[in-house]
């Protein structure tokens, strides 16, 4: 994956590291720096999580800092809220996207609202880590993209890294934040490697990043679809189309500034995500960018997304997931 110019060139000590590994490192460093950081959830202890993101931490920090909770997601988020009220900074894991749904009431009615209802007297510095999206051949309920549920909920900050450097930097920042953060981890990208020297500070987690500059089209992507966007840009360049790729990184807040500047330059934009299109995150992106840049737009903003169907069974997911080819075909539907 082409790294942005703004990211520092790998230092001497840079080593190949995966997103999963970078997340582990971020957790380790945060736990080392602050004794109030605790980690719990299903199987995060000795097993190291089903994706091994907490691998080794249980041995290193012991079960007062990281432990397996009972199997109940509302319980996990609900008790994290109580802990945060007493000064801790819990990082909890929902094992798969769809298994965050039992915690929906705790997240929307409490996690998101406590700061507001107490006029900031109670802060909830909690990170809810959710491996999300498809591409790993998971059976039903293991490939949902739930971001639109969270981004529509005022009080939550929702971010998603697409590469190891951001995975580290953004998770550190999320843990350090006094606002609750829904931290979406693109599970199909856990094993992507980059050469990175840790610790690394990338852009603030609330900022979008221009990963590739271009002049004809702005492609907006996040998490698992950043790679798709980069591939599409590469393919398009062969045909002489210059595509700017922006990794949104932060879904809530949305970085209007960075995206606006790009769209004013290119006058055409498309957003790519895996979730169903209807009421998906792309709707907000298309609506708000159109509102703000209407008179710069030469064409409607395209949404290249999953279909409005439940996520398919493993053997059919390839037909559901947006591909670079589908992106290019979509761009072709514009009148140029």
């Amino acid at each position: 994956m082409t790294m942005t110019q703004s990211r520092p060139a790998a230092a001497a000590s840079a080593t190949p590291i995966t997103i999963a590994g970078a997340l582990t490192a971020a957790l380790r460093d945060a736990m080392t720096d602050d004794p109030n950081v605790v980690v719990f959830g299903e199987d995060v202890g000795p097993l190291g999580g089903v994706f091994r993101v907490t691998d080794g931490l249980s041995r290193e920090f012991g079960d007062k800092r990281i432990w397996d909770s009972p199997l109940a997601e509302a319980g996990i988020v609900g008790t994290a809220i109580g802990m945060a009220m007493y000064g801790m900074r819990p990082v909890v894991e929902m094992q798969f996207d769809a298994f965050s749904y039992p915690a929906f009431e705790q997240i929307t009615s409490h996690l998101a609202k406590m700061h507001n209802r107490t006029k900031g007297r109670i802060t909830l510095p909690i990170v809810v880590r959710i491996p999300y999206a498809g591409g790993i051949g998971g059976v039903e309920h293991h490939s949902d993209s739930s971001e639109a549920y969270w981004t529509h909920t005022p009080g939550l900050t929702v971010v998603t890294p697409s590469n190891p450097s951001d995975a580290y930097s953004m998770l550190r920042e999320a843990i350090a934040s006094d606002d609750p953060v829904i931290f979406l981890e693109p599970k199909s990208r856990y094993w992507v490697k980059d050469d990175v020297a840790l610790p690394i500070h990338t852009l603030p987690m609330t900022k979008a990043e221009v990963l590739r500059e271009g002049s004809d089209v702005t492609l907006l992507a996040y998490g698992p679809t950043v790679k798709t966007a980069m591939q599409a840009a590469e393919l398009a360049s062969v045909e002489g189309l210059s595509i700017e790729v922006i990794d949104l990184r932060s879904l809530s807040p949305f970085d209007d500034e960075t995206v606006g500047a790009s769209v004013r330059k290119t006058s055409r934009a498309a957003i790519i995500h895996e979730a169903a299109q209807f009421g998906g995150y792309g709707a907000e992106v298309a609506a708000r960018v159109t509102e703000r840049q209407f008179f710069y737009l030469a064409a409607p903003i395209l949404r290249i997304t999953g279909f409005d169907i439940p996520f398919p069974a493993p053997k059919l997911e390839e037909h559901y997931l947006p591909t670079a080819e589908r992106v290019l075909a979509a761009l072709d539907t514009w009148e140029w």
Partner: protein
Amino acid sequence: MPSVNNLLNRLPHSAQVLHDSQMSDTATRRDEPARPTAMPIRLIDEKGAAVRGKRADGFEVPADDVLLSLYRKMVVARRFDTQVTALTRQGRLATYPSALGQEACEIAAVSALAEDDWLFPTYRDTIAILTRGVPPTQILSFFRGDWHAGYDSIEQRMAPQATPLATQALHAVGLATAAKLKGESTAALAFLGDGSTSEGDAHEAFNFAAVWQAPVVFVIQNNQYAISVPLSRQTHARTLADKAIGYGMPGYYVDGNDVAAMYAVISAALDRAHSGGGPTLIEGITYRMEAHTNSDDPTRYRTASETAEWQTHDPIDRIEKYLTKSGTLTPAIAEEITGEAEALAATTRDAMNETPILDPLELFDHVYENQRPSLIEQREFLARELASAESGS
């Protein structure tokens, strides 16, 4: 520092149970947590007489000075409660869920708390919050509709009143666990209604508390109804306290209109919590004398005679009789208490007759700790709208 997962008194792993088929039936019974009694624990009966023997389950009537203090708080709280109900009928408040008839549960619980302990109240438990020292205006700003939470939760060590049922029980478990992890003796007490025990969150809270041996006390105020729904549609169990057995924690079935019993049982549970003994589930049998809230119509689901019958079990009556008999409650003291109650009622009336000055722009100021540009924009939008409405009028 105690470990959250260092489980005390674990039973032999069920595998081991399986292995030895020669084991006698009782061999695996350990010192089990206290099971709820057959009859609700009671220390003072309706005639104001002390109860001893099995019915008291080993608990003792608290000293007279403690009881007098409980009595005083109950009287004051009831006066406050009726005052607020009246103010609500007059339209001063958006809503008010009264605790009339439940004073024994409310006051016993909050009086048993140590200063550092946390309370997790529901919408029903306003008088507990009052009794713990929050000024009426701060409490009532929620029901008046000024803002969602009116008092300083951190300073008061009381969570905002919870509306989504049973959710607060999990927060209590989390907070208690955090205290335990930090090696502090803080305990948490969560109120729950009988209806709320049906929610998944109640179950998860009881279970997390037991597995983590969290210093938390759950006080279920079984006031017989969840709005219109009677207990018989909520559970098929003998008692709600019996649920404790399924979590391996001590459970107590208590006469919730007997403030002496509630105080004794809750105090013992808090002692256990403070000293690493884990959680306790307590059910207090009581009755909501008022409507669910001012917008409820109880004639649709319960009879006047039922309510009248419960009137004869009034929680204040019996302690009044007891203390009068013992000579602790003199007419002079009674008069003083009435005076205190009336003074509070007056303050409350005055406070609620004031029109609060609210700043609509504050709506945008507390959504996040880290303010975001889009909310600043929206704040400015509303500011302009307000300004133009002002200038337009």
